[in-house]
């Protein structure tokens, strides 16, 4: 699963290639190659008369070099969206004018630019997205707007205790690699980044060969013909996953935050281990899904905000939880009890109910075109599109794995990973509390 943390921020190398237009009948799913390189994935669906059009890129959020700039990816993607080319309008203006919704998300290993539009404007959206990103234009005004936007996002996030703890978990769990670099950063980290650096990142990250175009909703596969080819001089290949190195055993980390809290994180199975990854999705759902998770129910009256999720990365995945505010002792007790209990097989009736809930949550979370596009984009860019929930129906690999889970396998998988050392973060508010 993408994970609640990632989805809240919102909310394929292995694709089988074919040529444009050869994807088959209107309305059928289609995969293929884009004219300028890169790949596309079209997944038509019924329901609301809308389309989600997204470009996903494998690109470290902090940049490709050794001197990472936190939030560089977000800054670059935002600057391109806000920059007006010599002719026409910026992507931001296009979205606003047609009443669509434009979002940009940067994750440790990827960047996503997504438009949700009326279905009748899906081709226009494909054209506007590919025009903006396949030959990116970056103006001073666009970069100024992007800096403002990233500063604002970062400021808001700095008051999100869960997000602060999440960043600390990643920084503790990893010794190096994209996951160690926070995708937001602070304004001081990117305020003075020269436009040339941002532009260079955009030209490498957003080149057509590195692109994955996802279209879902009330569309047919012909929508892909609206994609523009982009720059001819851009390297045609896609980026390969950057290696992530775990830090190994480390003691608990203390940090300051706006309120008391704690976080725990472990390296989990890679996306290629579908059985174990699905088991961890189940564990996160069983313990931490809002309202229904057993830990969530236990902490309902504590005044604390608890989030727990498994994030299906290329390698390794990350299982993490954050708890902030409220009665911390009570939350610690509930979390410890939950993490201990899940190492033992659930009884058959409880397991059956939990799996029903899990499958319902998977389907419900992906019921809109935009959510489905996010899921396809994530699983593709992390290297296992065929495992995306939503792909292949009941015979698809994700739901098959979910239906094949057993209490014993879930417990064994939990014990296998959670018995290993992980990251432990404790957040304390400043002495005397925050100024009012």
């Amino acid at each position, binding site marked *: 699963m993408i994970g609640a943390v990632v989805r809240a921020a919102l909310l394929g190398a292995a694709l089988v290639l074919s040529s444009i237009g050869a994807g088959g009948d209107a309305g059928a799913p289609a995969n293929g190659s884009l004219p300028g390189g890169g790949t596309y994935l079209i997944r038509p669906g*019924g329901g609301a008369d*809308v389309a989600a059009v997204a470009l996903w890129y494998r690109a470290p959020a902090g940049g490709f070099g050794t001197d990472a700039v936190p939030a560089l990816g977000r800054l670059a993607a935002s600057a391109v969206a806000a920059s007006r080319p010599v002719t026409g309008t910026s992507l931001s203006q296009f979205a606003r004018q047609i009443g*669509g919704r434009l979002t940009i998300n940067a994750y440790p290993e990827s960047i996503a630019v997504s438009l949700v539009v009326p279905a009748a404007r899906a081709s226009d959206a494909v054209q506007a997205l590919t025009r903006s990103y396949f030959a990116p234009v970056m103006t001073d005004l*666009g970069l100024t707007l992007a800096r403002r936007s990233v500063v604002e996002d970062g400021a808001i996030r700095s008051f999100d205790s869960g997000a602060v703890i999440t960043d600390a978990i990643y920084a503790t769990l990893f010794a190096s690699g994209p996951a160690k670099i926070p995708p937001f950063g602070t304004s001081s980290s990117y305020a003075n980044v020269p436009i040339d650096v941002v532009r260079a990142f955009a030209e490498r990250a957003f080149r057509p060969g590195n692109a994955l175009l996802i279209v879902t909703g*009330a569309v047919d596969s012909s929508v892909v013909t609206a994609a523009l080819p982009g720059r001819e001089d851009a390297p045609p290949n896609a980026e390969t996953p950057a290696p992530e190195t775990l830090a190994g055993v480390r003691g608990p980390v203390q940090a300051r935050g706006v309120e008391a809290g704690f976080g725990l994180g472990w390296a989990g199975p890679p996306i290629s281990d579908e059985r174990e990854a699905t088991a961890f999705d189940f564990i996160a759902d069983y313990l931490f899904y809002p309202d229904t998770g057993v830990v969530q129910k236990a902490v309902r009256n504590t005044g604390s905000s608890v989030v727990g999720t498994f994030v299906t990365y290329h390698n390794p995945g990350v299982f993490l939880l954050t708890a902030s505010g409220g009665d911390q002792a009570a939350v610690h007790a509930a979390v410890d009890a939950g993490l201990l209990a899940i190492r033992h097989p659930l009884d058959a009736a409880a397991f059956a109910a939990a799996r029903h809930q899990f499958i319902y949550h998977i*389907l419900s979370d992906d*019921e*809109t075109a935009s959510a489905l596009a996010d899921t396809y984009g994530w699983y593709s860019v992390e290297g296992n599109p065929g495992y995306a929930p*939503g792909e292949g129906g*009941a015979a698809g690999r994700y739901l098959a794995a979910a239906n094949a889970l057993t209490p014993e396998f879930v417990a064994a998988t939990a014990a296998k990973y959670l018995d290993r050392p992980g990251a432990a973060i404790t957040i304390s508010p400043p002495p005397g509390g925050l100024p009012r």
Partner: protein
Amino acid sequence: MMRQLLLAATLALTLAAAPRAVDLGNAKMYAQSDDGAQLTGVEIIVSAGTARQTVAQNGLAALTAQTLLFTKVNGTRLSDRIAAAGGSVDYAVAPGTVRFSLEVLPSALGSVSADFARVLAAPDTSADNVAAAREAVGVRIDAEERNPVTVGVEMLHSAYYSGTAGAPEYGTRASLAQLGPSDVSAFLAAHYLRGNTFATATGLVDDTASAAVNTVIGALPDGSETPPAVTAQAFPAEPRHLVTSRDIGVPFAFVGFAAPAMSDRQFAAMLVMRSLLNDVAARQSTTTLATYQRGINIVYAYDVKPATFTVAINGSQLDPTAGLTVLQAILKTALTKPLAPDVLKRFQETARGEWALEAVTLTDRAWLIGAAVNEGGDPGLAQSVDAAIGRVTSADVQALAKAYLQRYTVALVLPRRRN
């Protein structure tokens, strides 16, 4: 089973067909089936909203709905039973109705509908259950009180609607404390009637879904009532000013207007006006701004007839005084000068897009169908709005402004002073 679990991604494109009316015998259902859907969304709509309350019963509609969800079946609350079966349930209270929103795995429809029917047939109105429900509604009230927008909109609704139709959705903690098991029992007996109820359904809607809805509504006693009167009070010539304070950081200002409901002729023109107002005060941004990042937000409650149109000015983004000045200038222009053709065309385009994105989840789509039916309109009304927006003229917008936007009420929600 195979068909029920097929994913949207694997099926041929099937756009949502127009909702169709299904006579279930026990009640009417309006269904919009998506062949690619994997879940079934159902709304059970009961004519038991705030307008059915007396002044002394503020919050009773919500308390009753919550009591039902907390009623136990085989020792487990209905809401938990539905979750364990693979689904979810919630409720929303409006002046005319209470809506129960169900979303479930199709394979769970049988057990969920049987459970819901048992609860409707034998609700637990014991003191303990009502007390638990009262606390749960209280938590919702607390959340609403922390949100300045809901506070402002509720103030305006209270001033706009006559009688209890304008009462707050969940009541107040003080009013709930006065309500007990006998009130809930009497409310159920008086208003939870088969003839007061209809359903809408979206997603995978087949014969199993129809049977499930029939089972639920069939558990209600026979009978019906005249729909409650939901009427508005006339605006005085001079705008009223309402002021309150809450524990918030910045002031919020609200301007409340009467507005055409979804089934009214001028609805499409109001959507164009909404797009215009949304845009003029919006700052430049790289991506679509979240609600809290916008200086002006519109809350258009077109699912109630008569409807309301509230302009909310967010003091963290825009000085309320400046916002009110801008709004007055726009309205003055709209009243005196027709929109230029290019301006009209631009905001028609924006309005069409915003409307398409208005309701995309199963629950929201089911709500929209229900809103149209409840207003006496065609269940497929939502699908005709795009074309109606395209037919809006500058004269229509000007006529709309004259009919609805000349009189209004102002509400202010200010930060509470601290010693």
